[in-house]
């Protein structure tokens, strides 16, 4: 099972828009909530009310500050979960076959009842997308909400990942990145979606949309002043006002 299946035509994944993510952590918590109740063991928390609380999360939001050569520094919120790589090193290293990539849609999963908790798959993942649950001793990772997206007990409109459903700003998109005509593929094409750490050769399915250029005044006619005064003094303004008003409807003149 540890062998990767032949590349599937359907490549389900997420597209995350770094231009839109406001860093609210809503996706982090809805993921925690859904996956605590569903797929496999609950995501446990150690010392939850103590001095060093620490728990299992499948999706975490970082933030980075980027200083351009010119102009103000920018801040970018950066959610990250499993990227469901096509060449998933986490799968091939797994000694038990617990880690596998689904042949039909490319989702990378851990079969918890086979997992010995050796941690090697987490070592092999460049993205920090796998976390060992300290209570259960098994590897946890984003399931792409495989128990939602096909779930016939959910209304059709809810068959999407919990994090996508909850994201208030709509920064997360879910779809088939194997289909060039899908909404997500189009979005990636339009906005120049990119891979994280492409040099690692993992071929992530998830894509990130770059922040749009910031702090750029729209192009204005440099020859004209920003706003031409109607008059240089108050009197002139009053005169202008009279004239301007007469061109409006309802005038007596």
């Amino acid at each position: 099972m540890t062998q990767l299946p032949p590349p599937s035509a359907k490549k389900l994944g997420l597209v995350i828009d770094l231009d839109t993510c406001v860093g609210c952590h809503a996706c982090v918590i809805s993921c925690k909530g859904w996956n605590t109740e569903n797929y496999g063991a609950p995501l446990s928390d150690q010392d939850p009310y103590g001095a060093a609380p620490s728990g299992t999360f499948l999706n975490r939001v970082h933030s980075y500050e980027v200083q351009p050569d010119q102009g103000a520094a920018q801040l970018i919120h950066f959610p990250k979960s499993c990227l469901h790589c096509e060449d998933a090193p986490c799968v091939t290293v797994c000694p038990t076959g617990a880690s596998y990539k689904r042949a039909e849609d490319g989702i990378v999963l851990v079969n918890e009842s086979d997992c010995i908790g050796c941690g090697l798959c987490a070592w092999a993942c460049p993205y920090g997308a796998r976390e060992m649950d300290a209570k259960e001793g098994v590897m946890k990772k984003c399931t792409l909400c495989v128990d939602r997206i096909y779930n016939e007990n959910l209304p059709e409109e809810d068959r999407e990942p919990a994090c996508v459903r909850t994201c208030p700003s709509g920064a997360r998109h879910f779809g088939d990145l194997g289909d060039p005509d899908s909404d997500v593929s189009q979005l990636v094409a339009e906005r120049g979606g990119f891979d994280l750490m492409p040099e690692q050769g993992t071929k992530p399915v998830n894509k990130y949309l770059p922040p749009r250029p910031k702090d750029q005044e729209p192009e204005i006619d440099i020859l004209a002043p920003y706003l031409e005064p109607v008059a240089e003094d108050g009197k002139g303004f009053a005169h202008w006002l009279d004239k301007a008003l007469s061109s409006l409807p309802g005038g007596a003149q």
Partner: protein
Amino acid sequence: MTHHQPDLDTSPKVSDEVRKTTCYMCACRCGINVHMKDGKVAYIEGNKDHPVNKGVLCAKGSAGIMQHNAPSRLRAPLKRVGERGSGEFEEISWEEALTLATDWLAPIREKHPEKLAFFTGRDQSQSFTSFWAQGFGTPNYAAHGGFCSVNMAAAGIYTMGGAFWEFGQPDWDHTKLFMLFGVAEDHDSNPIKMGIGKLKERGARMIGVNPIRTGYNAVADDWIGITPGTDGLFILALVHCLMKAGRVDLDYLARFTNASVLVNEDPKSEQFGLFLRDSDGEPQVIDRRTGQLAPWNGQGVEPDLAATYRAKGISHRPVFHLMADRYLSDDYAPEAVADRCGIPAQRIRAIAADLARVAFDEAIELDREWTDFRGIKHDKMVGRPVSFHAMRGISAHSNGFQTCRALHTLQIILGSVETPGGMRFKPPYPKPATAHPKPHCKVTPGQALDGPHLGYVQGPEDLCLNDEGDPIRIDKAYSWENPMSAHGLMHMVISNAHAGDPYKIDTLFMYMANMSWNSSMNVGGVHNMLTDKDENGDYVIPRIIYSDAYSSEMVAYADLILPDTTYLERHDCISILDRPICEADGIADAIRWPVVEPDRDVRGFQSVLCDLGARLGLPGFVTDDGSQKYEDYADYITNHIRRPGIGPLAGWRLGENATLQGGRGDANGGQLESYIKNGGFWLAHVPENAAYYKPFSMDYQNWAVEMGCYDVPQPYIFQLYVEPLRKFQAAAEGIGTRQPPERLRGQIKATMDPLPIWYAPFEDGHVDPVEYPIHALTQRPMAMYHSWGTQNAWLRQIHGHNPLYVPTKIWETNNFQEGDWACVTSTHGSITVPVAHQASLNENTIWTWNAIGKRKGAWALDKDAPEATKGFLLNHLIHELLPPKGDGLRWANSDPITGQAAWFDLRVKIEKAAAPEESQPVSPPIKSPVGQGPDELDWKVGE
């Protein structure tokens, strides 16, 4: 093929049942689907049909399950047995608790109802709690608005009959340029995020004005890292540029604002600065059709912005002239304000040009006919697709009221309020100040108050002053110190009660406000006030009753605790009489209902008030035979009638022939059931032709009356010039019988200008800006709600402590390194806290996340919790009074008009400090009445 994969059930059962109710972790009040398994709460997600959140949910909302299961939850009523502040309590029965409360309160009501101060924090049932307080007869009631954002609310209501958040929102579907001032999270937080998402999807532009570039401001296309407290100046410079270039919507200004109303121009006249009115009291304009005077609302009148009027030797000029006089002045030129605002003049000009370009050159039109209140038909709706939104960043300053007014003025001169692409009101707004009640404060022992406590004053005659001219209210709301304090001043209650100024009280009764911690200024001082004893050894504030659901810092300071349920265990109503959940396209209200029963001896606070109200015999809470009128809050919600046909909920009311209808109607015993069936809310859509121009549109006005927003249509025009402000100013100039005390005349004259002005934040004048050169701010973390959620096991992992963020210049000057600590000092105190570097920050500003710091012993947390050892509150540095100046008097650290707490005026200095063991100052630990939370959590219900 050697690839095998296990069989996976991709359609597991999700839950046994979904119960739809309303979230409570902030004022946004999103709809939630609570998934139940085995009768327990299993998972919470957003309700897709809900008008507010349309399915999305924030981190706090999703973590509601941890909120509900929190080990910090109180278990039973508590009676204090140790010293106040120690946290030593014994659990008592409800009967004992309610008897005690009745024994304390009944005698007060008989003799001095004002000796009860009832203040209710971030109460979402204010129309009910105020009704209770009114029945009790005390004038001393308010909720948290005074320390929150009353500047924004009051400036909006006085200027245009509504503000942002529950009052209004940008037209997210049409706007092309959106400017956001001073917002980290907002009351309308999910809709803002959804709105930003919509802008991004359409590629519309967003400008963030904020000293700090995080969150919304981080995704803004342009960031203006303004110097705190100077937004008014920046906005008025934009107004200057736009007016100077004539890039204002003259037609809109003439028709729909009081820019055309005539003002008395004679300094010698008693009426100086007031409107010219006809015998009916209606403000006058010149009708362009006739060149003659006409009432502003006369049928067919075309008000003139230019024409002046002279009668009996007194000249009257339209407001627009006064605006031109003021804002065309070079005092407001970008070059004159650039340094103070920290924004280059060129950039201000560029933004003004953008606003003008988008508003006028990229105007949009909707093919919808509508008729205005003058009977004039308009065949289309012209949109100015620029929109604005603002919150506490401009509101929580001592110049906040005028700054908010300036912003509203900017939107209005662009013609973008209530036009497509601009800012839109949410029913029951728009509602002008004159359509709101005035404040009431007449106390009669043993009787109800003469009317609702809070409202909108129209002049000195409406102030809450006694015959000596002293404040009637304990918080001094509606006094000369802050005449337009529309939400009261919760932040002054403890310090005034302690000082006995204006008088001593007997019982402080509070609900849902952590007043000994993150919602107080001068935290240590407040601890002393709450525990201070007089010469007889009695507490200076004799009795404190408090309702909380959790073991918060405030619990330790009460004598009697009435433990509340969680939001999933009680009835609640988010009423149109209060702060509803409406959207620009619809009127809506909602309920909460017990989706689970409490597993402990706690009761919904509102139901407790129904009981207590009956025990005290309060009017409205007993039937004619003296028995309890409302069995519980659900009963009240269903059966209370406020005005004929109007009750707490507008949905599914009983019409004639027992039909169910929205808006008006009789009480319907099955109303709550209907709500539950509909997902917990009721929604009626605004008709298309009434969707814009609401204040002026007869189509809207008539619909609003039908819905019960008000009883008669009340169209109005925007008040660029706020006459009531002028009345206070005139009083300060010596006009009229009600006169301010001498010491306040100067302040009132200077600040209560009827046209928006800017003045420096008060702290700048009381504190040496050279010694304290740095501005210190807080921001709300999106994933945490004040103290409310900080003990939440999931969220506290995200925000377990809060560094102080320092900009590059200060970082380098002080040679800070990662892991360093700094001592931050204001004139009031100092704190020693961990620092971190942020480059995307105004160079003279430092900041931290609000209310992450916790006190040891609170919230069922370990005493070494990072919240207590590394986390901290900035509040230690902020005092409710400013340091004395020449006159030796201490001025409130509040806006002089509304009394809004000026949290963000704070100035400090900073220096590197040796790392202490814990953040300083350390408050002594309190004893936890609920023990400590478990060591491990793997919450999963069901199999």
